[in-house]
């Protein structure tokens, strides 16, 4: 029995791999996709606890993904991963209901800590 189901959306292969290599040993079931389209498709089919999404991507960006998830699957917690942080995007993300905001390069401990908090938050709701 896994601790939870996590969907990672990032156009960078190395970031996706890093997430799965960090979170899988911790007992999470991790699914990896490289675009918002693929992510939405998977979200239609399966139920996830947490979505980790990159902010800046071609076609659909992280803010748009966050907005749609919060519309359709409000129970799913979203953690934004970003290559560079600005006050604007951080404020916007939190306002739209993102649980956390992770700056690249994050450490495995930082990622695990953020995901654990998100799971705890989800459980208490």
């Amino acid at each position, binding site marked *: 029995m896994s601790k939870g189901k996590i969907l990672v959306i*990032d156009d960078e292969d*190395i970031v996706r791999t890093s997430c799965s290599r960090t979170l899988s040993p911790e007992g999470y079931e991790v699914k990896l996709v490289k675009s918002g389209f693929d992510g939405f498709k998977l979200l239609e089919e399966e139920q996830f606890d947490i979505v980790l999404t990159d902010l800046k991507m071609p076609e659909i960006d992280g803010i748009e993904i966050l907005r749609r998830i919060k519309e359709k699957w409000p129970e799913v917690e979203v953690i934004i991963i970003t290559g560079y942080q600005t006050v604007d995007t951080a404020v916007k993300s939190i306002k739209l209901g993102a649980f956390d905001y992770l700056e690249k*390069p994050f450490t495995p401990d930082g990622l695990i800590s953020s995901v654990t908090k998100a799971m705890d938050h989800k459980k208490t709701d």
Partner: protein
Amino acid sequence: MRVEKSLHSLTGKLLLTIGTLMLVGSTLFWYFLLKHQEKELLENSVKYAYSFVDYVKKSTRYGMMTANKLLIQQTIEAIGSSEGIRNVRIVECTGRIDYSSNPADVGKTLDKNRPPCSGCHGPAGKTRDSAIVSFSKDSDDMRVLKIIHPIYNEKPCYTAACHFHTEDKKMLGIIEAEVSLAHLDMSIKNQGIAITIYILIFLFVISVALCTILWNLVSTPVSLLKQGMERVAGGDLDYTLTINTRDEMGDLANAFNAMTADLKKAKNELLEWGNTLEKKVDDKTRTIQMAQAQLIHSEKLASLGRMAAGVAHEINSPLTGIVTFGHLLLKRFPPGSQEREDVEVIIEQANRCSNIIKGLLGFARASAAEKAPVNINDVLDRSLNIVRNKADFFNIKLVTEFDDSLRRVKADASQLQQVFLNMIMNAADAVEGKGTISIITKNVIEDNTEFVEIEFRDTGTGISEENIEKIFEPFFTTKPVGKGTGLGLAVSHGIVLDHGGKLLVKSKPGEGTSFFVKFPADKEKP
């Protein structure tokens, strides 16, 4: 040469013109006056001649009536001896001289075809019966007036007892008289000389008066004016003309003085302009250079910020991989093993890369500030709380002198904190872990504008003069490789400028450094 010059002068020309006109006028006057006088005198002489002949006629009348030839001859001789009378004769119609002041002529017969008879007796035997007056010249070249007067046959003549004349004759003879005009000529000549002398005296007096008047009214002012112009042309603009007349010359002098004054004013303005021009150009050039430098600087920072944003996005993903896999690898090696230490180096260096990227991102963020009135003292307190517990600050004495009445500043508090932290960290580096860092806040007024000033003073090694110019440049650092990115001050500077503030530095090598951050005070008082 001098005479020629005088003739070409204004006075010379005027004198010559007026002199010539006066000379011509005087000559004409002189000529017509003399002619008129001569005519008058001659007319008088003729009248005198008529009355003289009448006088001869009346004097001899008694002799004629009594046919006393001797009495007539004596009377004629007596009359003829009068002064100015050259000759008096009574001639019969036949041409015989009956009586004459010159007794030798009596009895002679004159030719009818020669003067004086030819005057009345024309070639056709025709005679005239009126008096004839003529002028001739004598042997002394003196004029002589000759009058021939007819003697008519009157009733007493042909009714006298002597019966000498019969009634049928119309004319009995003529009286011929010659009067000398020597006196008259002399008088005319003397009058001519007198008039000439008067005219010459008049001309002389007029000339002297004209010369004096022209000299004073024209020549002197003109030469003064010429002298003045030469002086002004020579550069003496203080020269003023003193011609105190109310005529055109006075006006000209006043105009000249006004012109000189204007010239002087214009020259002074030009000189002053020329003197200050260089300074003005220098000032302007410096301002432009400074503005240009600032523009280049901010453009440099902006493009660096844009580049940093792009680089950050691209680099941070691979760095995530390096950090994550480094940590994964770390767990496989036992603590203290060489492999574990090597992997730690990899992770550490990846983090360093990340820090450099974050520093670069400061440029991109500087423009996205949310400004609100902020109490600087509070922001400083928060910043100090962050550093106070850090190991680096254990041996550093932090002294604060905060002004409680400090004005608020419209600013982004988080950006201000970034700046203050950077200042404090730099000061800590400067004192090398041991010393005093003082933070002083106060209100100041510069250029009529209220500023809030924050001073970060350290007791460190100071900054050398060659470095002090470069400290605000991105990537300039004196810290050892790996310790500083050289972006902290550059980013701080950018943030301070973005808030309309100033970042200044004063340093004495060996004694320490003071950084002054100044922000314009918020206009709305708390």
